């Protein structure tokens, strides 16, 4: 056991999977000697050499497209895309190929690929460095989409992702890369893709969230006198609607918190499924505390954009009064 940050937990997972399985290789911009712009691959170049930790040309479609080829050949590439804002150029390779390969070839070819991408706002970065596109990829059948909210989960989920026989987008909430530490076992372990985590239990209200927002939810819960159950989805697709259903059936009230713009965000899917499954138990409409339907502003205003404990607290009060 060691007390690790999320960055360290991911680094540890990468090291362990690479030691164990020489089909695993890492490619991307600045992942080599530099250890990545967030230093997530720090030390790996030295340890595993330039054949397994590969600095590529600056081209995201190229990184993902060649990774698809590597994966089709049976390797387990783990490409890094530097910021979620630069997934865009790779969108087509991800959605037109990685997501479709297994079904369009009826299993002749598969794409066991794990795309690591820092995600979300809150670090005062330049434009296009603070977005949250998880719903885009959840809408694309054939992908799995994961977003851990803690170091322990990050390690376990990343190991699951790398071993998963299908393509996984592994979003790493950059705001909590080094925000706190947690006990993380040295030994390998997996956290299953598709299972939510009940962060704390409660009876009055359910909060559903994922990624860095989980921290804001916890702050709001601490301030509140209500008995609140917090669910960290951990996986965006496939998602653990059973865990949500179970909780909301009990509490009758739900607030969903996410950074992405509200319209067509993943919150809409969860809210809809709650309505479908807990229709008779619902005491108030499910509430979304989300990013606004605007471009994430430059950093001077980003705190006005991001859902924070204040906005969550208000929603808790309001839904309670409904």
């Amino acid at each position: 056991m060691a007390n690790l940050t999320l960055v360290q937990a991911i680094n540890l997972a990468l090291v362990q999977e690479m030691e164990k399985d020489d089909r695993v290789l890492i490619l991307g911009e600045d992942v080599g000697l530099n250890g990545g712009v967030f230093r997530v691959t720090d030390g790996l170049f030295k340890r595993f050499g330039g054949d397994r930790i590969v600095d590529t040309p600056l081209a995201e479609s190229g990184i993902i497209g060649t990774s698809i080829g590597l994966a089709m050949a049976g390797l387990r590439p783990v490409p890094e895309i530097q910021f979620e804002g630069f997934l865009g150029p790779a969108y087509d390779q991800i959605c037109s190929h990685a997501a479709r390969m297994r079904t369009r070839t009826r299993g002749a070819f598969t794409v066991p690929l794990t795309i690591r991408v820092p995600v979300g706002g809150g670090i005062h970065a330049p434009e296009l460095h603070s977005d949250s596109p998880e719903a885009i990829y959840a809408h694309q059948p054939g992908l799995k989409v994961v977003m851990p909210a803690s170091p322990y989960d990050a390690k376990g989920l990343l190991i699951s992702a790398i071993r998963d026989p299908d393509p996984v987008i592994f979003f790493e909430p950059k705001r909590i890369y080094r925000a706190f530490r947690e006990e993380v076992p040295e030994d390998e372990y997996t956290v299953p893709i598709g299972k939510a985590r009940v962060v704390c239990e409660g009876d009055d209200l359910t909060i559903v969230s994922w990624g860095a927002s989980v921290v804001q939810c916890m702050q709001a819960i601490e301030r509140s006198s209500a008995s609140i159950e917090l669910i960290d989805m951990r996986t965006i697709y496939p998602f653990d609607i059973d865990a949500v259903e179970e909780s909301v059936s009990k509490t009758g009230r739900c607030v969903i918190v996410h950074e992405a713009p509200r319209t067509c965000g993943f919150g809409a899917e969860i809210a809809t499924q709650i309505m479908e499954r807990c229709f008779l138990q619902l005491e108030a409409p499910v509430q979304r505390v989300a990013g606004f339907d605007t471009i994430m502003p430059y950093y001077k205003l980003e705190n006005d954009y991001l859902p924070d404990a204040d906005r969550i607290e208000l929603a808790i009060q309001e839904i309670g009064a409904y």
Partner: protein
Amino acid sequence: MPITKVLEAQIDHVSILDEHGNFDESLGKGLIPDEDLIKLYGHMVICRLLDEVAFKLQRSGRMGTYPQNMGQEAPSLGAAYALETTDWMVTCYRENCGLFWRGLPMEKILQHWMGDERGNDIPRELHATPIAVPIGTQMLHATGLAWAAKYRGEKRVACTFFGDGATSEGDFHEAMNFAANLDIPVVFFCQNNQWAISVPGKIQCSAPTVAQRGFAYGMDCLRCDGNDIFAVVHCMNKAIASGRDNKRPTFIEAVTYRLGDHTTADDARRYRDAEEVELWKARDPITRIKAFMKSRKIWDDSKQAELEEHADEAVSAAVKRAEGIEAPNKEDFFNWMYAELPEQLVVQRDTMRTSSIGQDPSQIESPQASQQS
């Protein structure tokens, strides 16, 4: 010296057997043994026939949209002939002739265009990837496949095929650039058939040659008459050697022509002159081999008659096999989505519904009754 020359480059064009029957012995001798040439010729004849039959299948409603390969048999066939079966063939949709040479059953291609994914279920030992529909995207996969071979210390190369239009896509550039800079053994094989649907080659590449696209990456660039299978094999041999030994990619431009419409959904008369088509009919890759073989006395009319009969049989049998495949099961489009199907997909499959009440009939008082109403 204010102005210093720092680089010089040139493009050569290779032609061995031209449409007038000229054959260059210096490059051509021994390149393709006679018995192989006979086989290659026979194969092209069969493929041409299949292509014609496929067109008719579409017209009579027995197949969906189909892109004819007619006139472009030599490029992919020459390439497939030069490659080992352990080398990857990463194709677009005008490489039927090469794929069939590799061993892909003809019915697989028909099945694909008949709207059935199982046409893409290509036996692994063929080292061929299925038809790529989104233009320009598959070259990156070839680069990845060849990279994997290099990573594992295998001597395998990947040869990827694409049209002139495809060289306009950003992914083409990225694939070439990755291969050149990371030393990955890919043969980038451009079938320059001079049209991308209705758009002429000059809109895709106004440079004098497409081959020079490779200069941008410091890559070896070869250009040849694509309707001359000897020239294709010559270039492929060079490219393969460079890939296998030095892990260097090569760019090949094979100049050819699409004799048919772009696909069965297209009508090429809208945008190109009949004369141009006639000109290229005279440059057909098949007839020139036949003439050459006859001049070498290794082919005659009776062999031709025999071949044509065989071709008829082979093609009819393939069509029969394709049409005889049992209809796909609608569960299939669920079952192959993931190695393990997520629960919500299991429910969607088993109920064939996306509505929550329909998926969970306990939600309604008396579903049976209501369905009968």
